C-alpha cells in the first residue's frame, strides 16, 4: 500500500453500536445483509396466493426482529431475486412472520414451488406503518379489496388483539368472486368475536354464495358512523381505494384519518434505487402507508 494514502475500512466503522435491532437507518453493515429465515408452514389460500409462515433461524434475530403493522420486508430467494412483501401478521407474535404472496412474477413463482424447510432471506422491516396508537378510543373501519387483505391483516389482527382500546370496529372485505377470497378459513373465527362487524362482498357470486353481492362501497351504505371519531384503513387496488376514500370523504371522514398502503416494485427498500418513486416521493421511506391527503397530493399515485 502506498504510504501517502491510507485505506479506509468501511466495515470497521460501527462494530459496537448498541442497541442491536433491526433499525437499519444508520447501520451500514446491514445495508444488504439478509437475515436467514426458514419456511415453517405453507398455507394455500387460493389458486394464486399462499401464506408463508417464516421463522428466523438465528435465535438472536428472532428476538430482534420487530415491526409495526403496515411495514414491509424485502424477501430474498437466493438465485432468483428479492421482492418487497408486506407483512400480514400481528406484530405481537415474535416467533412467526407471515407473508401472503401472490404468484405474480419470477421470484414469487419460484417461491410458490418452495417446500417447507426452505431457507430464505429477509431484509427489513422497511417503511411507514399505520398509526395504531392514534386510532385508539376511536371507531375503526378496516376495508380491503382483493389482495389488499394481505397488508390489512396486520392492523386487523392488532385491532382484534387490542379490541378494548377501540370503539366500533367494522371490517369490510370485497373480492371479484368467491374463489378469490383470502383467509376464508378464518372468517368463522372473526365472526364470533364479540362486537366486530365483519362483512364480505363479492362482485360475481357463484351458486353457493349467500352473502352480499356488489362493489365494496355498497357495504358503506348500511353503516352510520361518527366522522369525527372514525379512522379508516383502506388496502386494495388504487381504483378501489379511490372510490372507497372518496365515499368516506363524502361521509365526513377527514382525509388525514384515512390510511392507504401503496404498492410499488422496490429494489432496495432504503430510498436509493428510485424504482418506487411516485413523483418525487419514495414509497419505501415515506410510505407504503400514506394518509389519503398525501396520496391526493402525489402525482401519478393512483
Amino acid at each position, binding site marked *: 500500500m502506498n504510504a501517502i494514502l491510507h485505506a479506509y475500512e468501511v466495515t470497521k466503522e460501527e462494530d459496537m453500536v448498541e442497541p442491536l435491532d433491526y433499525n437499519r437507518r444508520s447501520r451500514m453493515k446491514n445495508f444488504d445483509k439478509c437475515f436467514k429465515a426458514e419456511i415453517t408452514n405453507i398455507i394455500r389460500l387460493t389458486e394464486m396466493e399462499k401464506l408463508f409462515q417464516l421463522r428466523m433461524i438465528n435465535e438472536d434475530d428472532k428476538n430482534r426482529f420487530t415491526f409495526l403493522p403496515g411495514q414491509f420486508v424485502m424477501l430474498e430467494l437466493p*438465485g432468483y431475486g428479492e421482492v418487497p412483501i408486506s407483512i400480514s401478521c400481528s406484530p405481537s407474535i415474535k416467533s412467526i412472520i407471515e407473508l401472503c404472496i401472490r404468484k405474480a412474477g419470477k421470484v414469487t413463482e419460484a417461491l410458490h414451488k418452495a417446500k417447507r424447510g426452505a431457507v430464505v432471506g429477509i431484509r427489513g422491516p422497511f417503511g411507514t406503518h399505520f398509526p395504531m396508537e392514534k386510532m385508539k378510543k376511536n371507531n375503526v373501519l378496516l376495508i380491503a379489496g382483493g389482495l389488499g387483505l394481505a397488508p390489512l391483516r396486520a392492523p386487523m389482527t392488532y385491532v382484534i388483539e387490542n379490541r378494548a382500546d377501540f370503539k366500533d370496529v367494522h371490517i369490510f372485505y370485497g373480492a371479484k368472486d368467491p374463489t378469490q377470497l383470502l383467509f376464508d378459513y378464518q372468517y368463522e373465527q372473526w365472526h364470533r368475536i364479540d362486537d366486530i362487524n365483519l362483512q364480505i362482498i363479492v362482485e360475481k357470486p357463484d351458486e353457493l354464495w349467500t352473502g352480499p353481492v356488489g362493489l365494496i362501497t355498497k357495504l358503506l351504505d348500511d353503516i352510520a358512523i361518527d366522522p369525527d371519531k372514525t379512522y379508516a384503513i383502506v388496502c386494495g387496488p388504487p381504483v378501489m381505494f379511490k372510490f372507497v376514500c372518496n365515499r368516506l370523504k363524502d361521509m365526513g371522514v377527514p382525509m388525514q384519518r384515512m390510511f392507504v398502503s401503496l404498492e410499488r416494485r422496490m429494489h432496495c427498500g432504503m430510498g436509493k434505487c428510485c424504482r418506487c418513486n411516485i413523483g418525487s416521493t419514495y414509497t419505501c421511506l415515506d410510505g407504503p402507508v400514506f394518509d389519503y391527503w398525501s396520496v391526493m397530493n402525489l402525482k401519478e399515485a393512483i
Partner: protein
Amino acid sequence: MIFKTIVKEDLKKLFNVHLKDVECVGPKQVATSNDGKAVYQFLPFESFDEINLNHEKTEYSAKTYFLPFRETLSTFNFKNGDWDQEIKYRKQQRVLVGLHPCDINALVKLDKVFAKDLFPSPYYRSRRENTFVIGIDCDKPCTDGFCASVGADVVTHGFDLFLRDIGDKYFVKVGSDRGLNVLNKISPTDISPEERKSYRKKTKEFLAGFKNTIRVENLPNTLDIEFESPVWKKWGDKCLSCGSCAMVCPTCYCYGVSEQISMDFKKSEKVKQLYSCNLLDFAMVAGAHNFRPARETRLKYRYYHQHRGFVESFGEPKCVGCNRCGRACLANINPVDVISDLQMEL
C-alpha cells in the same frame, strides 16, 4: 480553507513519482469528434502526459468510479440445500484527477443520498473514502454548460485538492487533511497577494463568461402546476427512451437489482445495475402493470426528480448543469430547451 500554490511541473512529479503505485484516473483524449473537437473520458493512466487537464469536459461523468454501471452487492454460496451470503466492498485506493466543478458538485449531491442520508451505503462510502479527488476549475465556461444557473459553478467542499490555473502556477484549495499531506510531497508555497489577486481575477472572468442560462428559482412550483402541460407530450414524442441521458449524468443514481446464477449452480450473484427512469419498464410492478407506460410520463418524471423531488429532499436541484445529457441525447433533447419551453408556455 488552506490555500497554496504549486509550480505546474510539480504536479507531474506528484503523479509520476509519488503516486506511481496508486491507480490514477484522469481525463484522457479518446477520439476526435466530427467537428474536430477532442473527446475526453475519465480513464486510468500510467504517466501524467497521457491526460490533459485543459479538457473542456468528459463525455461520461466520473460517477462510474463511485457508482459503477454494474456492481455485485452480495454473493450467495449454495451448499447442501443451505446458503450463505458473502458481501465485499471495494477498498482499493484510487486517485481521480481533473474533475470540474460540475463533477465535484455532483459527488457532493451523491454524498447526500448515499453517504449521509438514511441508510448510508457502505458500497458507496468505501469507494468515496478511498478515492483521492483532485479537481480543477474551468478556464472558461464550456459551450453548452449551465452550471451557474443551478449553483454548481463553484465548489466549496467534496474534494481533497482543487486547482486553478493562474499562469505558470496552480492555485490550490486544500479540502482535507490527507490533501495537505499529499500536497506537502511537492513543496507547495504560501500564496502571495499577487497570486490571490490573479486567482480572484481569473475566477471573476470565468463567472462573467456564462451565456447559457435558465432560471430555476421557481421551477419546483412551475413543475407542480404544469404537470399536465402539453410541453411534456411535445418532448416526450421526440424521446427515444434509450436512457443515454441517465448513463452520462453525473448525478443519476437509480438502479435495478437482479440475480445471476452461476453455470454450475453453486452460487448466485446479486447485481446492482444502473438504470434509467426513461426505460420502458422502470415503474413496472408485479402483474406487468406499468405506472409510466408513456414516453412523456417517463421523460417528465426525470425532470421532476431533478428539479422538484431533489429540491424537496435536499433544498437544491439534482442537476449540475453540465449538459452531458443534452450532448448524449440521440433526439437532440436538452434540459435548457425543455425547461425554457415549460417556462415560456403562457
